[in-house]
């Protein structure tokens, strides 16, 4: 049943009628979701959350291509995210580009920087690469914070999200309208990543992860594929960053700090290294956790207990930082106890039930 007999079966998106059914159900759910939510909850908060999740899924995929599939480390992905964000806004305000063109161009700029960062990565590995990418991420926000064209410390405000600007006007304003744009882009990016991993390029990435010297011996061009991995990964981060500017409605350098890079890495780890499905789960679950912990004092029971604890022992203003503690703890625990993340958990559960009485 699970045996693949030829290449075409391997690259097939869905290999059974049941899967097709669930896939169609998923698409139907994604389409109906924004109409359903305001009726059920009376607010568009969950649509905003879904947008946030979709953006994080894109970044997580990109970072997973680099960390999980190619085996490189990046602690500077907030830098690429920032580049995508700023250049999308700049192209739209100064050059009057339509949104999609600006987004793609900005993502290509991010990809170019990814390529540049990929060059030293050819000679570096492990800890040294981590330090170099950390420095890169910090340098980007430092430079952006000091250049006037990027709005300096004050940041930038994105223009109205106009889809066909020079030829007509269709402005997306509400979260539900943005939802269709963001989620369809996220959907395309997921499909692209999934297909990329089934091609020669994806197999080259995996070979480099398992042993770069062995890969080189087998004829994988290391220079080409390592820089390509960085570029693809940065492209994903750039696209997500461009969308993020319009989700937030305001960007400034302190949004894209070092902590954000670690958050991205946490999404990948929690989801599962080297798995597309894991990236989706990681992005969704961790975004939910992040947004929930941001308003931790409003949670029932836990919130009130934490507020009274904060009044006695900690500071009340610093309470949202509990999110940071929880994230740190999750990273450590996942690495120690479940190195494959949610994906590993999913696989084990699936196998357990498949073979159940045995």
């Amino acid at each position, binding site marked *: 049943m699970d045996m693949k007999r030829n290449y075409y079966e391997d690259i097939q998106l869905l290999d059974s009628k049941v899967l097709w059914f669930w896939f169609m159900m998923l698409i139907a759910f994604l389409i109906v979701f924004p109409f359903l939510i305001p009726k059920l909850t009376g607010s568009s908060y969950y649509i905003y959350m879904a947008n946030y999740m979709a953006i994080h899924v894109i970044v997580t995929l990109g970072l997973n291509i680099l*960390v999980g599939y190619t*085996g490189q*480390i990046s*602690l500077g992905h907030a830098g690429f995210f920032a580049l995508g964000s700023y250049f999308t806004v700049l192209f739209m305000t100064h050059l009057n580009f339509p949104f999609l063109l600006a987004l793609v161009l900005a993502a290509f700029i991010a990809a170019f920087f990814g390529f540049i960062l990929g*060059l*030293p990565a050819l*000679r*570096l590995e*492990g*800890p*040294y690469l*981590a*330090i*170099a990418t*950390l*420095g*890169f991420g*910090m*340098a980007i926000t*430092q*430079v952006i914070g*000091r250049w006037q064209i990027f709005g300096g410390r004050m940041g930038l405000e994105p223009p109205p999200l106009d889809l066909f600007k020079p030829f007509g006007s269709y402005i997306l304003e509400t979260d539900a309208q943005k939802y269709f744009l963001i989620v369809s882009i996220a959907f395309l990016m997921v499909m692209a990543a999934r297909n990329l991993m089934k091609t020669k390029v994806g197999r080259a990435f995996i070979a480099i992860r398992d*042993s770069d*010297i062995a890969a080189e011996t087998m004829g994988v061009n290391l220079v080409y594929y390592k820089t390509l991995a960085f570029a693809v990964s940065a492209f994903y981060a750039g696209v997500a960053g461009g969308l993020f500017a319009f989700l937030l409605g305001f960007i400034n350098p302190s949004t894209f*700090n*070092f*902590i954000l890079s*670690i958050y991205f*890495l*946490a999404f990948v*780890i929690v989801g599962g290294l080297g798995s597309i499905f894991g990236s989706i789960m990681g992005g969704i679950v961790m975004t939910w956790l992040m947004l929930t912990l941001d308003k931790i004092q409003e949670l029932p029971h836990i919130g009130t207990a934490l507020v009274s604890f*904060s009044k006695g*022992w*900690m*500071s009340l*203003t*610093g*309470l949202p*930082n*509990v*999110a*940071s*503690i*929880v*994230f*740190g*703890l*999750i*990273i*450590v625990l996942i*690495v*120690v106890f479940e*190195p494959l993340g949610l994906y590993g958990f999913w696989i084990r559960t699936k196998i357990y039930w498949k073979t159940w009485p045995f």
Partner: protein
Amino acid sequence: MFLQLIISGLSYGSLYALIALAMVIIYKTSEVPNFGQGEMAMISTFVAYMLLVSYEHSFALSFLGALFFAAALGAFLEFVFLRRAKEPNILSLILITLGFQMMLYGLASWKWGAEQRDLPFPVSDFDTVSLGPAVLSYLNAATLLITLVLMFLLFLFFRYTKVGIAMKATQQNAMAARINGIRTKRILSITWGMSSVIGAVAGMLLAPIATLDPSLMLDPLLKGFASAVLGGMTTLVGAALGGYMLGIIENLFGGYVSLEFKSVVAFGIIVLVLCFRPSGLFARHYVRKV
């Protein structure tokens, strides 16, 4: 002007040297760059602040207390989390230290909030002593002096004490050290504690110049990494020299080229060194076996 820049560069450089030393000590034994180093130092500095201001203890008692706290914290983190990792590879070790970083950062922000405080210090930043055409504040002079004393103590420690020699043995070959009866795991905990203390000294010397808030060490951490990379992640002397060099280079860049982009210098140095001499200026080049 030139001499002034050099001297204040040396003073900042000694802080970078301390952070780099703390990092290299851990890197040599655990083979992981400790991304939690900065936050470990930051939280120890906050403990000093708390003992001084909230409980009104004397300077000596609070600073010593903070150093003890730092040692306990380092050993605790190693013992509770790092040691539990099964078959650790480099990525998972780095991730664990990043987890430390986030936990400690969140804890400090929760406890003390984001407001900026001043750590009182027995030596003033405003009284100065003049050295020829250049002036040096008492605080900078104290920083230079304390760093030199600490380095000398480290030298003595690694040369003449049993624990120091055992530590060197563990760094060179953990397996051989174990065969010779050294409890390498315990040595690892001690290493983390020691490194944490050195970092805490840097944090306490830095806090009076900067302002004390939870992001105190984010930037200096990168500088420490840059120094360690510049001098070589595998030599203590090299890392210390790298720290001084980075301090001077950065100050000269700030004085003559552009003050605005001074903080980007460290990144430029990291990239240049990693491109041309990945193992640092003062370390022997290593060859990886397949």
